[in-house]
């Protein structure tokens, strides 16, 4: 009886084909996954080139930024020197004014 049931099960469970076009639908899905949103596929040999270009761009940007910062520092230094020079001139002028104002009184006393 067991072998009868087993034979009936084998008969009932014969494999059946999927709906027509199944393999094509699978292929379409694999193609879509490979090249998402219509982009061109990137060939693996592009990867080292892209990586090298990224590193080079980062170096150039870093160097440019450093030059910019040095230039800013130099300008600030020149402005400070100019401000000190002007302050010195003003102090010198004030000192002379005070000295000239005090001189006639000294002369009158003499």
């Amino acid at each position: 009886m067991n072998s009868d049931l087993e034979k009936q099960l084998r008969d009932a469970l014969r494999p059946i084909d999927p709906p027509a076009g199944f393999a094509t639908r699978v292929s379409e899905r694999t193609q879509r996954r490979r090249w998402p949103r219509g982009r061109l596929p990137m060939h693996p040999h592009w990867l080292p080139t892209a990586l090298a270009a990224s590193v080079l761009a980062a170096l150039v940007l870093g160097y440019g930024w450093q030059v910019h910062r040095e230039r800013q520092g130099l300008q600030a230094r020149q402005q400070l020197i100019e401000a000190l020079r002007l302050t010195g001139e003003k102090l010198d002028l004030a000192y002379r004014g005070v000295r000239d104002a005090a001189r006639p009184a000294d002369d009158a006393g003499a």
Partner: protein
Amino acid sequence: MCDSLARARSGDASAFTELVRRHQRAVYSLALRMLTDPHQAEDVAQEVFIRLHRKLTRVQSDAHLVFWLRQVTTRLAIDRLRREPRHELLPLEEDPGIAGDSADGDPLLQRHLRALIARLPPAARAVVLLRYQEDLDPTDIAEVLQMPVNTVKSHLKRSLASLREMLGRPGGIIAVAERP
């Protein structure tokens, strides 16, 4: 390793399609008999081949490919049954296996048996399908389903007893067909 597997592994799209055509019948049948819904079955079968496409380089031989397809199909189907348990119930009139009726035997009995198999719990159903649809022995089934051989044997024994009991019931076929 067969030629189309080797070519598919090296990125040949037409070779991959050839592999799909060669194995689609087995994968789809397993998914259909597990899920009992042709749309869900096609969805799972497509997902199996999409995963195969992604992991093709890990497939070492034709035997490994067949094993991998069976394992992933049953795993995906069981996961889906656990997420959507409503697919476990199948009225006889919705039996999707009409096209699979064998020329040998009684078509009504075959449909009835498929409806009864669809009522088994997912793991037991997978064991019965791998045994009688894929013709695997308990050791191979245990490997595919990653369960102890004794559990496989126990599932088989209990499932056969349950099927026999339902078939032997007075008016069994009618009773199952008219199940609410």
